[in-house]
């Protein structure tokens, strides 16, 4: 525990300015730490603020309304929330890289694959173009793309979805980043391709020692990849712990709900969604005063509806924000 975390969020608050009145808060008081070589999975339904957390780290929130409204984003102790735009450009793609959900639309359709990888290298390492293209070729080999010499000069539309995601990974890792943010990297892909891409991320992580924040709504992916897990609901962290702690004893009713909605491995019911949690994530500007999950929670009491539960330690690294969970442990 003495090792300094490579990345830490302290009370991150991400908000969107609205035409009139107070901004709406999309991510609220979020803290996390990430150690060298570690994989942290952020889990939750869409609309819970997972992607915005990643975009906040890179300061790529949608302009002109999105902004970091408070808290610190510490990269090896340095606060990125206070960094200048020029400093952020140095960090993006070099210290921290990101892979996006949609490989079909995340690559530029009018530039060759090689060029898109090589320009990252050129911008950050100032090598000449031949050297950058050499690195691009090397990266394509590393992400196991067949016939890399040919692919280098092809355009994204000539590749399959899985291949494109490999290219995204090659691009993200081209400058050996210390942190990789992967936002639902396999959601848009076929099941068989999903497994290959996850294997690839894990192998490359082992090779390069990068720390990974993997954003997903798929607990199957979490079980396979995570060292630690952070569950988000409606912009709040509601539970955090090691992967064993979370899977063995999920404490927050939301986490439990997600677990029940997960198809059991090997049961052959992969895509059928049994026990889905009823209801939807509340809109940003329509969040209830108490626990955000209360309207969908079977265990909710009056207290839950009026008072926000604080994060409470449950032993080890495990913590959850639920009146019921805290009570049961005490």
């Amino acid at each position, binding site marked *: 525990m003495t090792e300094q975390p490579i990345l830490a969020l302290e009370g991150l608050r991400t908000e969107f300015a609205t035409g009139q009145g107070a901004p709406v808060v999309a991510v609220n008081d979020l803290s996390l730490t990430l150690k060298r070589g570690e994989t942290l999975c952020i889990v939750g339904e*869409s609309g819970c603020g997972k992607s*915005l957390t990643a975009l906040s780290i890179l300061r790529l929130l949608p302009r002109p309304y999105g902004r970091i409204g408070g808290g610190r984003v510490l990269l090896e102790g340095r606060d990125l929330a206070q960094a200048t735009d020029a400093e952020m450009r140095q960090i993006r793609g070099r210290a921290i890289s990101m892979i*996006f*959900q*949609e490989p079909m639309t995340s690559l530029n359709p009018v530039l060759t694959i090689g060029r898109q990888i090589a320009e990252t290298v050129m911008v950050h390492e100032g090598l000449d173009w031949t050297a950058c293209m050499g690195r691009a070729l090397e990266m394509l080999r590393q992400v196991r793309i067949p016939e890399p010499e040919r692919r280098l000069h092809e355009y994204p539309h000539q590749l399959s979805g899985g291949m494109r995601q490999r290219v995204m990974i090659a691009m993200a890792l081209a400058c050996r980043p210390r942190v990789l943010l992967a*936002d639902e990297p396999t959601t848009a892909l076929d099941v068989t391709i999903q497994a290959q891409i996850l294997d690839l991320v894990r192998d490359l992580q082992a090779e390069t020692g990068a720390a990974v924040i993997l954003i997903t709504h798929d607990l199957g992916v979490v079980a396979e990849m995570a060292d630690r897990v952070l569950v988000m609901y409606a*912009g709040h962290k509601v539970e955090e712990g090691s992967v064993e702690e979370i899977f063995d004893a999920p404490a927050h009713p939301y986490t439990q709900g997600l677990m029940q909605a997960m198809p059991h491995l090997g049961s052959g019911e992969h895509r059928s969604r049994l026990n889905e949690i009823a209801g939807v994530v509340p809109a*940003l500007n329509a969040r209830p005063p108490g626990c955000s999950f209360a309207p969908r929670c079977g265990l909710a009491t009056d207290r839950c509806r009026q008072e926000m539960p604080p994060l409470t330690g449950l032993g080890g690294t495990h913590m959850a924000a639920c009146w019921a969970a805290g009570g049961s442990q005490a």
Partner: protein
Amino acid sequence: MSATTLPAVAAPRSRPGLLRRFRRYPLPSIGAILLLALVVSALAAPWIAPHDPFEMNVVDRLVPPGADYTFGTDAYGRDIFSRTLHGGRVSLFIGVSVAIASTAIGLLIGVVAGYFRMADAILMRVMDGLMAIPGILLAIALMSLTRASIWVVIVAITIPEVPRVVRLVRAVVLTVREQVYIEAATAIGTRFPRLMWRHILPNTVAPLIVQATYIAASAVLVESYLSFLGVGTPPEVPSWGNIIAEGRLYVQIAFWNILFPSIFLALMVLSINVLGDGLRDMLDPRLARRL
């Protein structure tokens, strides 16, 4: 399009209300008010114009703007202000007539082209051919065919505007046909007039209103160009283009001859265009992307 699922925001969508509209669309509202002022001044010209626009006065030739003549006088001693007010009537009449005529003809041809496959190929080739001839050039050529009159000007400006309307209407008809057929198989049996009234016309109204507005603006401008070049409205009619064309000769010594009618002309075209942009944004966001 974006892969990042932004958290849903139940945005407070605009509620109707005149003041609210104005604040949401300040520019179009200003355009509408300006246009209204120009229309009223043109319609009321016979009553508010201080002089007879045709009355010549050899003593008061090329008088600068001042107390007697607000906008000065022309080479025949006629009052520019009165002529400009009357010129607004001509421009307005031509703008509105061209907009209505080209929209009506375009709608008819567009529906026929969109509905009857046989006619489509021929009609669209004709439209392509018309569009290959720059509008003003075609209008100038048409003007040469017969003795000039306001009606000939209207025809000459209308013909080059028709193809754009046809393309728009045809595109709508084709889309609507697709949708209707997907919606219900029975629609194949739907009779043409019914399809037309129930599905096609309602879908063309919004884009056509926007298009007609732009056409009106363009027609006002083109009329002034034709008259300016000496091939437009007959010279005895005090249209803005004619006032300017006569004033060109004296531009160095009596700039007011062209300045004031030009400003009125620019303001009218501007206010119609701004109104068109506003209508487009309000009625038809898809069209907004095209231009």
